[in-house]
């Protein structure tokens, strides 16, 4: 673009000069270079004003960001980061100077180079500022894998069976009474039974300087349980507290044989008898067998998630409906073709537009925080938040539909001798109903998606329990909620797409 035209004489030269960034009058490359000590000034001098301002702003941004990277405590910079940034900034500076000098001589200087320097600067700093850590990303994934699989496939926790508890008890005395105790008799028949041998003795005890002194070794035998299932040993003290005793670091359990009998040996647990207890204390040893029986049923978590999902869908429905009620009148006030005629209506038009724009630019999640303060946590807060956003969004879309009405049908229906009301019903309404419906369905779709998130900040619905479950690390439950949301949203997305196709 620099060389002068070689043919056709003066006329073409003039044409070219009028659009080329030619120096008129001639600009000195030397002055351009010197002025570029302040980046951009040189370009402004050679009449490339916008380019010059752009370079100046870019340079200021680079200088400011480099300083910020130096002083900030937001992240841990890798060694030499500041040096690298400084070098890039200086490279850019140098590039601007050279480019100004060459531009004064109507030549361009490797524009790609300037761009590459700026991009390198941006992404190096961006990588650091957002603390991108690929090492963590890959090496620590396996730790997440358990959570990840439970979220992705939570359905094992979605169903459960009714549980039956088989329980058998036997007494254990501490200390052994002087007269001794009669040995326990094994049970018979279908009832579950256990015996403890011996049925009295000492608990494990912590002795200063010696450590834990083990308790009497006990053997628990039992029968009448379901075959080939686990039996847990529990302990109940004289004041009725139940606990699972620990023996050698593990809770105690045994497997029944194919006739439902078992036997397990362990030391009496560590137990501090309160000093005010006098005489022989009777404890109870229990053998418990928990069995799942009956048909599969929906787990409590899944049931809760489903309930909340339904609430969420209704939240979206209510918010959309309330939104429509207010958006329709608002949309007429915001329709240019209806309101632009006289000054007062034009003022109303601008005010309505402005209010709707502000309301729309504030995310529903922020409205939800405000609404939760206003009416308390729960679904209603979510409905308020979504309603406000819906009014603003639908109001705008509706008003655009009104603005795009064709005047032709109005004229044609009037010409048939129709009344004003008939003209509205036959010429205007058919034109606005389909877009209104389409926008409304679309909005409901958005509201369902939004209401799941709004629960995170106290807007009720499924988002609220999802947030709870995530905080409690109940990944299967959270996974079920996530799945329900995904299923609902995609079904609605598909349905609304189909509906909209029919109306538009």
């Amino acid at each position, binding site marked *: 673009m620099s060389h002068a035209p070689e043919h056709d004489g003066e006329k073409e030269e003039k044409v070219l000069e009028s659009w080329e960034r030619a120096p008129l009058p001639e600009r000195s490359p030397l002055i351009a270079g010197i002025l570029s000590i302040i980046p951009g000034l040189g370009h402004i001098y050679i009449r490339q004003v916008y380019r010059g301002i752009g370079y100046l702003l870019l340079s200021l941004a680079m200088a400011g960001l480099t300083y910020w990277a130096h002083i900030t405590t937001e992240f841990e910079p890798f060694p030499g980061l500041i040096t690298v940034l400084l070098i890039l900034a200086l490279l850019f500076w140098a590039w601007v100077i050279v480019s100004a000098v060459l531009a004064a001589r109507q030549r361009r200087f490797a524009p790609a180079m300037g761009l590459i320097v700026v991009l390198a600067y941006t992404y190096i700093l961006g990588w650091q500022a957002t603390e991108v850590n690929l090492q963590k990303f890959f090496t620590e994934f396996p730790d997440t894998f358990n959570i990840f699989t439970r979220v992705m496939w939570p359905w094992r926790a979605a169903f459960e069976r009714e549980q039956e508890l088989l329980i058998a008890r036997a007494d254990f005395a501490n200390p052994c009474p002087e007269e001794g105790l009669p040995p326990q008799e094994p049970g018979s028949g279908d009832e579950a039974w256990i015996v403890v041998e011996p049925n009295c003795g000492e608990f494990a005890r912590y002795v200063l300087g010696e450590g834990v002194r083990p308790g009497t070794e006990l053997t628990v035998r039992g029968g009448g349980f379901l075959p080939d299932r686990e039996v847990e040993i529990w302990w109940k003290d004289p004041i009725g507290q139940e606990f699972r005793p620990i023996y050698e670091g593990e809770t105690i359990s045994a497997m029944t044989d194919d006739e439902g009998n078992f036997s397990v040996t362990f030391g009496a647990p560590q137990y501090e008898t309160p000093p005010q207890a006098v005489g022989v204390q009777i404890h109870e040893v229990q053998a418990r067998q928990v069995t799942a029986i009956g048909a599969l049923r929906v787990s409590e978590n899944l049931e809760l998630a489903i309930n909340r999902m339904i609430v969420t869908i209704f939240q979206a429905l209510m918010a959309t409906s309330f939104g429509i009620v207010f958006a329709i009148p608002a949309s007429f006030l915001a329709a240019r073709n209806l309101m632009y005629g006289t000054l007062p209506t034009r003022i109303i038009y601008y005010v309505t537009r402005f209010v709707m724009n502000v309301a729309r630019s504030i995310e529903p999640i922020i409205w939800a925080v405000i609404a939760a303060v206003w009416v308390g946590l729960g679904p209603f807060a979510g409905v308020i938040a979504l309603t406000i956003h819906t009014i603003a969004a639908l109001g705008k879309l509706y008003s655009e539909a009104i603005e795009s009405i*064709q005047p*032709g*049908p109005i*004229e*044609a*229906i*009037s*010409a*048939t*001798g*129709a*009344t004003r*009301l*008939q003209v509205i*019903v*036959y*010429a205007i309404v*058919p*034109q606005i*109903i*389909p877009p209104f419906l389409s926008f409304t369905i679309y909005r409901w779709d958005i509201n369902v998606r939004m209401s799941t998130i709004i629960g995170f900040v106290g807007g009720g619905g499924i988002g609220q329990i999802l947030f709870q479950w995530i905080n409690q690390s109940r990944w299967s439950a959270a996974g079920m909620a996530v799945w329900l949301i995904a299923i609902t949203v995609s079904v609605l997305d598909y349905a609304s797409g189909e509906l909209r196709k029919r109306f538009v």
Partner: protein
Amino acid sequence: MLKVENLTKVYEDGTVALRNVSFEVADGEFMVVIGLSGSGKSTLLRCINRLIEPTEGRIIWNGVDITAAKGEELRKIRRQIGMIFQQFNLVERSSVLTNVLSGRLGYINPLWSLINYFPREDHERALAALKRVGLEDKAHNRADALSGGQQQRVGIARALMQEPKLILADEPVASLDPVLAHSILGQLEQLNKEDGITVICSLHYLDLVQRYSTHVIGLREGRLVFEGDNEDIRQMTDERFKEIYGEEAERIGTGSIMG
């Protein structure tokens, strides 16, 4: 008999669309209005059914002053005047049948019409009208699914529903290709000849004017600059032609496009 007397229309922005235009149309005529775009043809047609309010002058139709009519009376006049438009002006998202039925709105009980109820005989009338324009199988299509020529025929069917004594046609074929133009104007001619409906039609193509008109008026900058019959148009000289279309207009051979 339609009598237009000293009709003048000045728009709010000061544009003078019609200046003191007077003419008469006998019943059963096929009258064509010619003139450049912006010469006042559309304004003139719309003054006749008062879609546009004339500023001055009177329009008398069979002894009734249309310009003085108000409310109910005006609607009763309008329902006897069918109108078809260059852009067809159908409600595109409604069905063809609904569009045709809407031609009946001036006759039926307004309350019933609000819930989209039309008497049985109106349905039959609508299907008959569609049959007449050759679209009986399109009754339940959406209007915008039809081609331009078909949409204009729906427009004619809608006008027919009004049992009109007069049809105003504002550039009915300007959006259509020449073959379709003959088909549409043929339909209008048939209504004119068979049913005795007076037609007032604005047109652009000279050969169409020669072929269909029985009476022609020419407008230029809102003034009536020509009035004659079909024969006058056939024999129109270049000077006369330029009076209507301005000095810069050239006649491009016989049967050519004007304006």
